[in-house]
């Protein structure tokens, strides 16, 4: 640019490349570099986290075990009319005998029995009984008659309807169970019998208790956040340690602390007895019920309300309140009309954060919730480690995940994920 004559020509860098091209290249390189920096973590999260989650989602509809273990019967059943009143034909009974025979030899047929037993009690033993006796069948006149002799259930058309319904590689039955519904024998979808309905109620309880905990953290968090935000920095820096220490303390430490405090022979009951408020043989039951879950979780999640609330309140200039008061508002009016609306973003951020964390909680309800204070998470854990109904556990997990993702998007809209702050 030192030579005024060159201004008409295309700007070039020292080595003669046009400046525009060079700049574009530099920008592209920069972009590539930043992508390269992010790529390792992206791949890592994909492999160690997102793939497992996807795997679980697929498991909630996966039903390969049935067509895999009934390779002869499943295709034949497609041609059978389950809406009529006729049992399947001889060819299907024959195919079933062969499939069971093969499954008995490889000891896999009972896995099928277990799968179908989740749909209808007793299927497990139908297959067990049949697998034991079917070996001896050598070219009988009628496979149907022989199978009915082994177990009369094979003459029940509803069992065949069930097998046909579940003979595909995918099933919707786990999701139906997860919302207390089932496929009836006539193929329609309806509610489960009342005495078996549980999950809708449990989802409802999870949401209700989480909401209660969120409200409690707002009620307890607001006054102290306000105090912290309006105190001189030196004092508030000291007091905030009282919020940060619980935040940094292990979840299990805090849960066991509440067990020590709340149980029948615990500190609080001892204190109440010593003061004379309750009689020794009328100690309060504050644990292994909803009280235990709500109290312990409110304590554990309170810092997650105070910290965002505090950081929003700090940004509200004190002059707002002073201006309102000088214009004639009372302390109360100024607070309600000026301060509270300004602190709403903090309440929103804290509330969604607490609510998201609460609905997925497992450890604390498991340890202090008894039966009335457990959440849907506890049921998911039970189906994975206890009942072994993995499909149903995965379906419940998928529903919970969708719920959390919806809240996450809401949080992103209101607060922005980037604005998440820690400590």
């Amino acid at each position, binding site marked *: 640019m030192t030579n005024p004559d060159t201004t008409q020509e295309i700007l070039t860098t020292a080595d003669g490349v046009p400046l525009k091209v060079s700049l574009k290249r530099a920008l592209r390189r920069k972009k590539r570099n930043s992508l390269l920096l992010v790529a390792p973590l992206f791949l890592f999260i994909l492999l160690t986290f997102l793939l497992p989650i996807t795997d679980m989602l697929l498991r909630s509809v996966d039903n390969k075990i049935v067509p895999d273990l009934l390779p002869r019967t499943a295709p034949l059943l497609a041609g059978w009319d389950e809406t009529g009143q006729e049992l399947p034909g001889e060819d299907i009974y024959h195919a079933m005998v062969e499939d069971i025979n093969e499954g008995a030899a490889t000891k896999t047929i009972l896995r099928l029995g277990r799968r179908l037993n989740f749909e209808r*009690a*007793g299927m497990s033993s139908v297959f067990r009984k049949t697998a034991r006796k079917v070996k001896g069948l050598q070219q009988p006149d009628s496979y149907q008659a022989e199978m009915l002799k082994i177990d009369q259930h094979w003459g029940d058309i509803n069992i065949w309807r069930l097998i046909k319904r579940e003979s595909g590689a995918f099933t919707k039955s786990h999701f139906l169970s997860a919302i207390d519904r089932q496929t009836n024998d006539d193929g329609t979808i309806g509610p489960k019998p009342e005495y078996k309905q549980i999950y809708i109620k449990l989802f409802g309880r999870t949401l209700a208790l989480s909401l209660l905990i969120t409200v409690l953290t707002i009620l307890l968090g607001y006054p102290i956040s306000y105090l912290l935000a309006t105190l001189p920095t030196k004092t508030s820096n000291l007091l905030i340690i009282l919020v940060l220490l619980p935040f940094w303390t292990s979840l299990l430490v805090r849960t066991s602390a509440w067990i020590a405090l709340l149980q*029948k*022979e615990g500190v609080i009951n001892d204190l109440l007895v010593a003061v004379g408020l309750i009689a020794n043989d009328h100690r309060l039951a504050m644990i292994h019920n909803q009280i235990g879950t709500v109290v312990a979780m409110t304590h554990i999640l309170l810092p997650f309300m105070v910290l965002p609330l505090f950081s929003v309140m700090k940004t509200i200039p004190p002059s707002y309140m002073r201006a309102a008061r000088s214009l004639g508002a009372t302390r109360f009016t100024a607070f309600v009309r000026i301060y509270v609306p300004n602190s709403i973003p903090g309440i929103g951020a804290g509330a969604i954060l607490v609510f998201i964390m609460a609905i997925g909680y497992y450890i604390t309800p498991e340890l202090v919730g008894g039966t009335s204070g457990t959440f849907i998470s506890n049921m998911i854990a*039970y189906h994975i480690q206890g009942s072994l109904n993995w499909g149903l556990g995965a379906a419940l997990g998928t529903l919970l995940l969708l719920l959390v993702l919806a809240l996450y998007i809401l949080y992103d809209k209101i607060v922005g994920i980037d604005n998440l702050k820690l400590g």
Partner: protein
Amino acid sequence: MNKVMKLMLIAMVMIAFSAGITLAKTELVIVSWGGAYTASQQKAYHDPYMKLHPDIQIINDDSAGSGAAKLRAQVEAGNVTWDLLDALASDAIALCDEGLIEEIDHDKMLAAAPDGTPASKDFGDLIASPCFIPEIVYSIAFAYRKDKFDTPPTTLADVFDLKKFPGKRALEKKPVANLEWALIADGVDPAKVYDVLGTPEGIDRAFKKLGTIKDSVIWWSKGAQPPQLLADGEVTIASAYNGRHFNAIVAEKQPIEMLWDWQHLDLDGWVVPKGAPHKKEIMEYLKFATDTQRLADQAKFISYGPARISSAPLVGKHAEFGIDMKPHMPTAPENMKHVILKDHVWWGDHEVELTERFNAWLTK
């Protein structure tokens, strides 16, 4: 920063070394129920075996409670890390049917009784499945706080009588045993319990009876909880594995007394996972750990009945407290006046359905 990094590196190297040192021996991973029960196996089986075989290191894994689930996941992945699993007879039947555990030739693989009776005869009809090596007979039975009642409860009906015997109850958070008890307490002929329970009306009746005490029940899910609940005074009557009650009464000297009426007898034993990493070593261990003397030895530490007929006469005194163990066994004649023998096959078919209903009933 540099200093911190260096310190971290040194720490890591040290930890890696200390982790490496323990790998020199062959490690057998044995999965059991934890607590006093694993402790009794440690003293009666593991410790003497490791003394005889210094190259073997036995690792206790306390996850038998979710053993079937974890074993299924391991077999499905083809990555079995367990060598031996302690399982209930009903679980063993299901796992064996599904081909997840090894079949056992009891006479060939296990030691005969001292008098030469082959193992299969010595265990008798306790071999619930060809994959199952019986270990103990245990029961779920009641116990109560002596100091809370003027006249102590003596029958199953008393457990359901909140007026005469006030206070909370602790019951296992499972339909098993509770439904049978409810029916018997409601007057069903004990011999026909499973027939009645097989009908919809019978199930309704059982739940209705359980419902009469439901508001006063604390449900437990881990074996150690009920004695703790009794000791803490949270409940006045609790069902529990009889060995856990025994431990609270004898070792912890709690004011607790057994109520054996209609105890629910069940079987527990060993199963070998298919694809266990040290099959040869574990079979050798089993031959030792399930012989007549070892099974009788376990009864020195915990009050479960040994599964071999030949072990019964060898049951002696408690290793630490010196009391005679025989009257504390669920199989002692005076405790056997009223018993429910768990029908493993029946429960194998109905557990899923009844558990589903039981869980729904609990949230009502």
